[in-house]
């Protein structure tokens, strides 16, 4: 039988993996909450950020945890520009077009990476990648602990930004009532782009947290984004709190089901959960409307 000695570390590990999932999902749900579109380019942007973190280390010699502070603003600008100058103008404000444009962007980014770097899988070797912290009779991997703390910090910073800054308030206003916000003099196109930039910056942070222990290849981001879709739906589309808690929940479920069922079936578990949630309760556990 499963004893507490196995179970407790599994839950803790799940929570820490879930934190990174939650961060990817946070970007996705933020964009959905404000723009009301599903960003199909999210996974491709994550892959691009992972490549950026990889090359920041191998070419510039920047530790991923340092590169984080460089890539976060860079990807914010990338996301801002994409929404402001590509997605927004190309979509003409039609939801179906948004879907197609972001899907097209995903195809472009992923295959440009494939063309530039081939299908090779790359990893970085960091001295602390396999370090562990011992608590009682449990071992926690250092990169996972760092990732968990960083995600909490990012989520808190994001919350403070949305709660207290003028731009943050404008973002929330646009999410609630676009026309009303526009009539109050808020530049909606700008706020859309800021939101997209924030979502993309979340992905950049997630990439820097992943790269010490994960590999990168042109489709590396896909695995995460499908989990992120599940989390976003589970947590309620557009709900930040929902994304965080659902992210942690999915991380734990995955960790426990891997123990119970093995690797290959664990993947299916996520999809089945995704479809069931979509069908039975598309508004999610925390969502307000379908």
């Amino acid at each position, binding site marked *: 039988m499963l004893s507490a000695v196995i179970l407790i570390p599994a839950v803790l590990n799940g929570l820490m993996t879930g934190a990174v999932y939650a961060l990817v999902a946070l970007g996705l749900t933020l964009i959905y909450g404000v723009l009301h579109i599903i960003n199909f380019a999210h996974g491709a942007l994550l892959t691009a950020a992972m490549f950026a973190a990889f090359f920041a280390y191998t070419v510039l010699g920047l530790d991923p945890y340092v590169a984080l502070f460089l890539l976060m603003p860079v990807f914010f600008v990338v996301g801002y520009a994409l929404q402001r100058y590509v997605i927004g103008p*190309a979509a003409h404000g039609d*939801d179906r077009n948004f879907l197609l444009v972001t899907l*097209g962007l995903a195809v*472009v980014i992923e*295959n*440009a990476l494939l063309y530039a770097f081939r299908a090779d899988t790359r990893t970085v070797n960091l001295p602390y990648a396999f370090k562990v912290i011992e608590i009682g009779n449990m071992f926690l991997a250092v990169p996972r602990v760092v990732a968990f703390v960083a995600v909490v910090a990012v989520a808190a910073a994001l919350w403070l930004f949305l709660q207290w800054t003028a731009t943050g308030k404008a973002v929330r206003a646009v999410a609630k009532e676009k026309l009303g916000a526009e009539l109050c003099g808020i530049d909606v196109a700008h706020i859309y782009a800021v939101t997209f930039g924030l979502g993309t910056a979340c992905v950049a942070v997630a990439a820097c947290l992943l790269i010490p222990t994960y590999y990168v290849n042109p489709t590396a981001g896909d695995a995460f984004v499908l989990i992120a879709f599940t989390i976003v*739906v589970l947590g309620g589309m557009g709900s930040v709190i929902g994304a965080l808690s659902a992210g942690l929940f999915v991380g734990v479920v995955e960790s426990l089901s891997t123990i119970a069922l093995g690797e290959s079936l664990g993947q299916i578990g996520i999809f089945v959960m995704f479809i069931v949630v*979509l069908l039975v309760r598309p508004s999610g556990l925390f969502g307000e409307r379908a």
Partner: protein
Amino acid sequence: MKSYAPIVVVVALLAVVPFIVTSNVVLNFLVMALLIALAGQGWNLLGGYGGQYSFGHAAFFGTGAYVTAILQVRYGINAWLGLFVGIAVGALVGAAIGALSFRWGLRGSYFSLVTLAFAEVLRIVASVAPITGAGVGILIKLDLRPEAFQFQSRAPFYWIAVGLVGLSLVLVRAIEHSRFGAYLAAVRENEAAATALGVDAFAIKLGAMTISAAITAAAGCFYAQYFLFLDAAIAYGPWLSIDALLAPIVGGAGTLFGPLLGALVVKVLGEATKLFTGDAPGLDLVVYGVLLVGVVGLAPRGIAGFVATMTPKRLRLLWPSSLRHG
């Protein structure tokens, strides 16, 4: 009958190609384009005419392909029979996914997401289930007899592809002119209003999805016979889901010849890119992605719509209004 005349002309023009061109490379290229046109016509019925954007048409393509292959390899059933069974099972899968999705009122992004998820689930299942050959894939035995749906030369395959595309064109034109087609357009334009007027939106969408899945499954069955090999990434991979929506959108979603026109343009561009860049992987798909963004951004009604803006204003009124600007 006048409205079917363009179909006859197009099919006749396509059918004479093997008499003029004997190059296998050209025929192979055209077969692939026709295959995408067929899969795309399936998407077009649901997405273009019905306004339901599926991101997972690979689910139907793969099902058709696997059913044809498995029936032959595992049960020794004739390939022609397999073609019909494959189409039927594909339609069934479409009906099942449609019933689940539409029953719970999934629309827009939710519908796109759930179709994508179903295709991915099928892909993962196919990559581990023993009956599909799991990771190794499934190989159909070479048996070059017309009775076995295999031919010595490419021309018969090509004519069958033309025939299937022709049938899909006739089917979609017939739907366009039917009451069902009118209801479908009404649901696309405004589902609430259509329902208020007594249209059973659930039944209409379900019907469209079933026929749509059948058409795309036919493309899958044909693919299996043409290449005689399948694995999970080919059959259920996202490439087909993207090609199937790219072709009609580039050509003109919700127009009869959109998928055929789009498939030809997309494939020509893909080949041209390969010609310029050699065998480097990825760049042809980059072109597809740019094309998708560009068409949606600059010519939201596709090539067909773009051409229509060149003709007198009255003709424009014939185009579906959701595909018009704004």
